[in-house]
């Protein structure tokens, strides 16, 4: 089971900040996102509108990056600290 985290606007709109997902044959971030999009709203709106960034095991990554069931995969909007 991979740990999926959602921060800021994403966490709020999806009404969850964390979930466990069995990746099965999903081997890239893009495949995981496709899986999430299949859930329909609010997932589709949140992942299709605006920029979503991804971090794997707390490192900024891309949507083509490989993922496995031991990973912590976080989705969030562009950062606005400082």
């Amino acid at each position, binding site marked *: 089971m991979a740990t999926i985290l959602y921060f800021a606007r994403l966490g709020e709109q999806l009404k969850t900040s964390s979930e466990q997902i069995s990746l099965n044959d999903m081997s890239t971030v893009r495949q995981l996102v496709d899986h999430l999009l299949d859930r329909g709203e609010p997932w589709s709106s949140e992942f299709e509108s605006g920029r979503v960034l991804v971090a794997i095991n*707390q490192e900024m990554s891309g949507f083509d990056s490989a993922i496995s069931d031991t990973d912590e995969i*976080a989705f969030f909007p562009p950062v606005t600290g400082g």
Partner: protein
Amino acid sequence: MSRISVQEQDFDVTTELQAICDARTDIGATVTFVGLVRDMNLDDSVSGMTLQHYPGMTEKALHKIVAEASQRWEVQDATIIHRVGELSPGDQIVLVCIASSHRHDAFEACSFIMDYLKTRAPFWKKEMLKDGSSRWVDARESDDHAAGRWEN
């Protein structure tokens, strides 16, 4: 050498400067940036702000930014404190303090760290407006542009 803290509590600039400078006499210059909550954003009156972060990743990202600054400039010591949670207009949000024996290194490293922090450290601001509504702050292109100028 560097101290990185993500915390709810406020900070005191003199205390942080003394922590860096006390008991040593080889520091010629310190440059300190403090970011504050403004009462206006995009022409709207702001009554407060909530700052969220990604515990663990945020600290790692800040350490990485300091390490990168230390490779580019002579940095004797560095402190970054970033607050999270509920903040009000006038409150301090972030402190970046750089000690160096050369003032230009201190200015450059401090400015670089702020530009990178604004585009690479996982913090998110949500503003409460005077009319009772709230909104997540959008990332600004100008911040991407500012971070980009260090890439050359």
